[in-house]
C-alpha cells in the first residue's frame, strides 16, 4: 500500500511527461483522477499505517513508512494536490481547443492557463516526490524525494520557459535549495561515521538494524530514527547538515530569497509549492528529527531563533510588498518560521498543526490570487482594487484565508500559532515576544491584502493604467469559471476549521498520533492575548489604510532584505570569476606547459640539427680538410725532376750533418 501511495503519482506523472503533447487532451482529467486516487490512498494509509523495509543500497537499511506525522503530511499533500489540480484542470474551454498560451506567449505579468500534460505530469511527480520524502525512514530515500522535489520545482517555476527571466528564477530557486541540500549529502556520510564511532550497539540505529534481520552493525546508520544516537562529535555535524538543508528548503533566513523568485511559476504551482510541498518539507524534517535537535543541545535553540527571526523579518518583507503574490510568498516564509520555531522549541504537535492548517490557508490564497491574475491580468495590489467585489465567491474565500492568516479568532492559525508560541514561552521569553511581534506583522500583512482586494474599485473601473501588456486569454470582466471556483470553498472551510487540531478534545488524540502525548497547548491567557492583538492589528490597518495604502516599510524590506544581491556579490560572482580565471589558467598554463613540452621536442631537434650536428659534422669535415691540405703540401716536393730530388737530398743531408755536429 505504501508503494501504491508513492508510486501512483510518480508513475502517472512520468507517463504524462513521456506522452507529452499527445496526452494534452486527457491530461487534466487524468491528473485530477490520479490526485483523487492518491488522496484515497493517503487516507487509507493514515488509517492502516503501512510500512515497507528494504535495502536500496546493499548493506544499508532503507524504508518507507507512514507514522502519525507522515500520515498527517501525506493526507495534507494529497488533499492540496487534488485541490490545486482541480483548479488547474478547470481552465477555460478555449485552451482545450488547442490554443496554447503556456509556451512563452504570455507577457511579463500575465498568467496563462496550464492544461498541458507537461504541467500535470510535473505536478504529480512533484507531489509524489514529497510523499517519498515524508514517508522515508532513512536518509537515502529522504534525499531522493527531497532533491527530485527541487528539480520538479525548477521545471514548474520555469514552466513558461521561453521567458528567460522565469528560467533564471527557476535556476535561482533550484541552486539555492540545492546548496542547502548539500547539508543532507554530508549528513548521510557523517551519520555513517558517527554510527561506526558509537560502536556496534549504537542506540536506535543498531536496534533497527538488528530488527531487520541483523546484518552488519552499521546497516541502520542511515535510518532517521537512529540519527539522535550517532556518536560524538559526528552527531553535531549531522545535525548541522540537516539544519542547513531544512532551512534552505523552507526558505528560512538566510535562504529566503529563492521563494520570491519562485513566484515566476504559474499560480497553481505556487499554491502547491508554498503549502504542502517543498517549503513544508524543511519544517517537516525538523519536526521529524526533533530528537536529534534535542540530543545536540544547541540545534534546538538555533533552529528556534532562525524560525522566529524569519517570522519577524519576512513578516516585515510581506508588509512592504505591493504585489499580491510577493506578499503571499514572504508570508509563507514567515509562517514556516513559526513551524520551524515549533520544531526548535519542541512544539511538534503545534508545529505540525500549524503546517497542516497553513497548507490549506496558503493554497487557498494562491489559488484566489491566480484566479484574479487569470481574469484581471494583474497581481498588483493597487490593480486588484475591487477584485473581490467583482468575483464575490473568490473574494469571500480569499477573505476567509486572509483572516485565518491574520490569526483572527476563532480561525485555524490563531490556535495553531499559539500552540507553537506556548512552547516558545517555556523555552525563552524573548522568543515568545519575538513570536508575538511576528504574529502582529502577519495580521498586518493579511489585513493589507484583504483591504486591497475588497476596497471598491475607483469609479469608473477602466483598464488600469499600469497594467502590464495584456496577456492572451485574460480579459477584464471575464468571470472565474464555476468549476475553477469549486475547490476554493472547500479549502476555505479547511482554512477556518483546522484549528480544531489545537482544541482540547481533538488535541489529545492528535498529540498521541504524533507521538508527543506530553505536549501542552496554549493556555487561555495566551490565546486571549494573541487574539486581541490580531483583531486590534486588523482594525488598525483598516482604519489607517482608509486614506492611503502606504507601504510602511523601507526599500530594504521591499527588496527581500537584499539577500539575493548579497548572495550574488558574495557567492555567485566570485564563483563565476574563479571559473573564468581557472579556465584561462587551464588553457594557458596547464595546457601551455603541455604545448611547451611539445614545442620543446622540435626545438631540441632543431637545436641538435643546427648546432650539435653542425659541430660534430664540422669537426669531421675539418679533419678531412686538414688531411687534404697536408696532402697538398706533401705533393709539392714530388716534382718528378731528378735535380730537385738531388737538391732535396743534399739539403736533408746537410741538415742531418748539422744536427749530428750540434748534438755531438
Amino acid at each position: 500500500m505504501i508503494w501504491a501511495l508513492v508510486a501512483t503519482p510518480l508513475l502517472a506523472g512520468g507517463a504524462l511527461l513521456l506522452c507529452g503533447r499527445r496526452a494534452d487532451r486527457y491530461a487534466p482529467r487524468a491528473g485530477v483522477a490520479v490526485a483523487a486516487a492518491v488522496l484515497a490512498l493517503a487516507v487509507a494509509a493514515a488509517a492502516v499505517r503501512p510500512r515497507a523495509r528494504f535495502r536500496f543500497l546493499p548493506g544499508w537499511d532503507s524504508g518507507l513508512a507512514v507514522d502519525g506525522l507522515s500520515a498527517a503530511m501525506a493526507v495534507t499533500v494529497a488533499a492540496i494536490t487534488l485541490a490545486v489540480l482541480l483548479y488547474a484542470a478547470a481552465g477555460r474551454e478555449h485552451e482545450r481547443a488547442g490554443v496554447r498560451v503556456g509556451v512563452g506567449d504570455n507577457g511579463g505579468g500575465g498568467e496563462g492557463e496550464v492544461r498541458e500534460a507537461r504541467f500535470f505530469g510535473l505536478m504529480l511527480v512533484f507531489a509524489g516526490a514529497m510523499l517519498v520524502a515524508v514517508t522515508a525512514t532513512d536518509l537515502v530515500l529522504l534525499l531522493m524525494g527531497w532533491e527530485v522535489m527541487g528539480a520538479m520545482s525548477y521545471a514548474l517555476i520555469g514552466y513558461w520557459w521561453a521567458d528567460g527571466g522565469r528560467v533564471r528564477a527557476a535556476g535561482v530557486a533550484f541552486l539555492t535549495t540545492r546548496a542547502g541540500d548539500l547539508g543532507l549529502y554530508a549528513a548521510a556520510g557523517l551519520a555513517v561515521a558517527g554510527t561506526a564511532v558509537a560502536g556496534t550497539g549504537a542506540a536506535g540505529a543498531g536496534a533497527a538494524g538488528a530488527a531487520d534481520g541483523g546484518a552488519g552493525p552499521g546497516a541502520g546508520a542511515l535510518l532517521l530514527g537512529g540519527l539522535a544516537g550517532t556518536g560524538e562529535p559526528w552527531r553535531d555535524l549531522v545535525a548541522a547538515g540537516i539544519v542547513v538543508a531544512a532551512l534552505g528548503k523552507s526558505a528560512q533566513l538566510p535562504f529566503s530569497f529563492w521563494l520570491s523568485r519562485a513566484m515566476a511559476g504559474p499560480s497553481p504551482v505556487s499554491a502547491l509549492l508554498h503549502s504542502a510541498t517543498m517549503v513544508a518539507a524543511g519544517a517537516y524534517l525538523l519536526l521529524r528529527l526533533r530528537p536529534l535537535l534535542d540530543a545536540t543541545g544547541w540545534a534546538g535553540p538555533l533552529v528556534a531563533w532562525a524560525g522566529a527571526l524569519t517570522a519577524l523579518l519576512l513578516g516585515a518583507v510581506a508588509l512592504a510588498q505591493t504585489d499580491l503574490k510577493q506578499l503571499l510568498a514572504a508570508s509563507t516564509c514567515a509562517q514556516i518560521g513559526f513551524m520551524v520555531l515549533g520544531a526548535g522549541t519542541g512544539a511538534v504537535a503545534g508545529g505540525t498543526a500549524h503546517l497542516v492548517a497553513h497548507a490549506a490557508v496558503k493554497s487557498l490564497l494562491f489559488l484566489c490570487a491566480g484566479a484574479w491574475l487569470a481574469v484581471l491580468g494583474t497581481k498588483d495590489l493597487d490593480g486588484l482594487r475591487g477584485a473581490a467585489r467583482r468575483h464575490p465567491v473568490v473574494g469571500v474565500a480569499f477573505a476567509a484565508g486572509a483572516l485565518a492568516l491574520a490569526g483572527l479568532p476563532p480561525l485555524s492559525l490563531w490556535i495553531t500559532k499559539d500552540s507553537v508560541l506556548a512552547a516558545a514561552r517555556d523555552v525563552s521569553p524573548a522568543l515568545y515576544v519575538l513570536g508575538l511581534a511576528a504574529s502582529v506583522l502577519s495580521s498586518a500583512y493579511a489585513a493589507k491584502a484583504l483591504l486591497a482586494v475588497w476596497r471598491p474599485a475607483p469609479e469608473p473601473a477602466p483598464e488600469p493604467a499600469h497594467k502590464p501588456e495584456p496577456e492572451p486569454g485574460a480579459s477584464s470582466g471575464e468571470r472565474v469559471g464555476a468549476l475553477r471556483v469549486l475547490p476554493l470553498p472547500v479549502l476555505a472551510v479547511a482554512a477556518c476549521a483546522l484549528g480544531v487540531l489545537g482544541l482540547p478534545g481533538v488535541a489529545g488524540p492528535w498529540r498521541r498520533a504524533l507521538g508527543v502525548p506530553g505536549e501542552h497547548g496554549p493556555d487561555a491567557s495566551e490565546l486571549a492575548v494573541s487574539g486581541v492583538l490580531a483583531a486590534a492589528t486588523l482594525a488598525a490597518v483598516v482604519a489607517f489604510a482608509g486614506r492611503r495604502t502606504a507601504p510602511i516599510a523601507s526599500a530594504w524590506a521591499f527588496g527581500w532584505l537584499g539577500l539575493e544581491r548579497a548572495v550574488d556579490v558574495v557567492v555567485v560572482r566570485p564563483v563565476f570569476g574563479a571559473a573564468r580565471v581557472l579556465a584561462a589558467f587551464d588553457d594557458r598554463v596547464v595546457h601551455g606547459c603541455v604545448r611547451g613540452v611539445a614545442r620543446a621536442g622540435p626545438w631540441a631537434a632543431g637545436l641538435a640539427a643546427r648546432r650539435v650536428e653542425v659541430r660534430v659534422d664540422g669537426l669531421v669535415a675539418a679533419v678531412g680538410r686538414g688531411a687534404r691540405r697536408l696532402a697538398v703540401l706533401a705533393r709539392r716536393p714530388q716534382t718528378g725532376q731528378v735535380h730537385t730530388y738531388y737538391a732535396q737530398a743534399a739539403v736533408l743531408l746537410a741538415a742531418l750533418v748539422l744536427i749530428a755536429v750540434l748534438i755531438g
Partner: protein
Amino acid sequence: MTVLSLVIFLPLAAALGLAAVPRAPRRAVLAAWIGTSAVDLALVAALWIRYGTGGGAGSDGIAYEENARWIPSVGAGYHVGVDGLSMPLLALTALLFLACAVYSVRQEHRLRAFAVLFLFLETVCLGLFAALDLLLFFVFFDLSIVGMYFVILLWGHGERARSALTFFLYTFLGSLVLLLGFIGLYLGADPHTFDMVELIRRPPLDGSPGLAALTLLAIGIGLGVKTPVVPFHTWLPPAHTDAPAAGSAVLAGIMLKMGTYGLVRIAMPMLPDAWRRYAWVPLVIGLLGVLYGALVALAQDDLKRLVAYTSVNHMGYVVLALGAAGFSGGTAARELAVSGAVTQMVSHGLVTGALFLLCGVLSDRAGSYAIGRYGGVARGAPVFAGLTAVAAFASLGLPGLSGFVAEFQIFTGAIGAGRAGVAAAAALSVLGVLVTAGLFLRVLHRVLLGGPGELTGRVTDVRRPELAAIAPLLVLSLAVGVAPRPLLDTIAPLSDAVVALVAR
C-alpha cells in the same frame, strides 16, 4: 575458446569480414555493424545473467576464466576473465558501441572504414576490461589509443589533425610510463610474471617500499593520463571537441574508464602498501579534479568542451573515492566508496555517452557547439530538449538517475569512513555537485530554453536512429537510479574484495 573470448573477438571478426569486402553495399555494412554489436550485447547480457545467478564463478569471484599460452618466455599469457568490476564495464562497452552504431546510421563519410574501426575498437575495449594479464592489458590499452587516433583524425572536424596528434602523443606517452610500471611489477614478482591473478595473490615488491612507491607512481601517472586526472587532462577537451559524436561517446564513455579500471584492478590490489601510504595523493587529486573540473566547465562556452570538463569532474569523484578507500576507517563505509566509484564509472559512461551523442545532434544540424548561438531549442525540438534535460539532470546527480546512486555512495562512503581529513575532503567535494548543477542549468537555459538564438531555427528534432541510440542509455540511467540493486549486488563482492586486498 570460451564464450568470453567469443564476446571479445566477435567484433574483430566482423571487422575483418567487412574489410575483406571492398564494395559492400551501405545497408549491408550497417546491418553487419549493428547486428554484430547487438549480438555482442546480447551475449554480454547473457553472461551477466548467468554470472548474477552464481554461474561460472570461480573461488576468487572470477568467472568465464580462460588462460592460454601466449608469450611464456616472459610469463605473459592470454588470460581473461570476468568479475564484479569487469561485468558492468563489459556491458557498458557493448551497449555504448551498439548505441554508436545505431547513431551512425546516417554517417556518409567512409562508412565502411568507420564501421571497421569501431568494431576493432569494440574488441579492444572489451578485451581490456576482461584482461587478467598485464601485457595483454597493455596491448589493448595502446591499441585503443591507436584506434581513437584514427577516429579523430579521419572523421573529426575542426583542428582534427592537431587534436588527434595531441591526443595520441599525450596518452601514448602516458602508456609508456604505465609500461614502466608494469615492468616494475613484473620484476618485483617472484617468480617474474605478468599474470594479474598471481600478482594480486602475492603482491610484488612487498619488501621494498621505495620501489613499490616508484612503481605506483609510474602506474598512477600512466593511468592518470588516461582517466584523466588534473593536471594531465588537457588532451581531453580538444580531443572531444574535434572528435565525431560517436568517437566522443566512446572516448568519454568507455576509454576514460580504462584509467580508473586500472586503478581498481591493478594499482590498489597489487601495491596495497604503497596505495595505503600514498592514499592522500589520489584523495587530493580527486578533490582537485572535482572542483577544478566543475569550475572550468562552468566557464566554457563550447558545449562539447563543457561536457569534457564535467568528465574531469566526474572521474575526480572516482579517484577521490579510491583514495578514501586506502585510508583506515570503517570497512563498510570504504566498501561503499569503492562501490560508488564503480557505479560512477558505469553511470558516467551512460550519461556522458548520451550527452556527447546529443552534442552530435546539435552539431549535425547547425554545425556549432557554441552555447551562446542557440536558445529556445525546446520549441522546435522538444524530444531533443527532453533528452538533453534528462541527461543534464542525470549528470548533475539528480536522484532517480544513476549519477546520484554513484555520488551518494562516494560521499557517504568517504565521509563515513570516519577519518577527519578524508571526511573534510569528501565534504568539500560535495560542493562539486552544486557547481555542476549550476553549469548544467546554464546550458539548459542558454541552449534549450529562453528566446531563440542565431542557430535555433536550424535545429530540428532528433531522428529515429538518434532517439534509438540515446534513449536506451538514459532509460538505463533511470533504471540504475531507481533500482540500483542488480548493479550494486554485482559490484558488492568486488568492492568488498578490493577493500580487503588494500588492507593487507
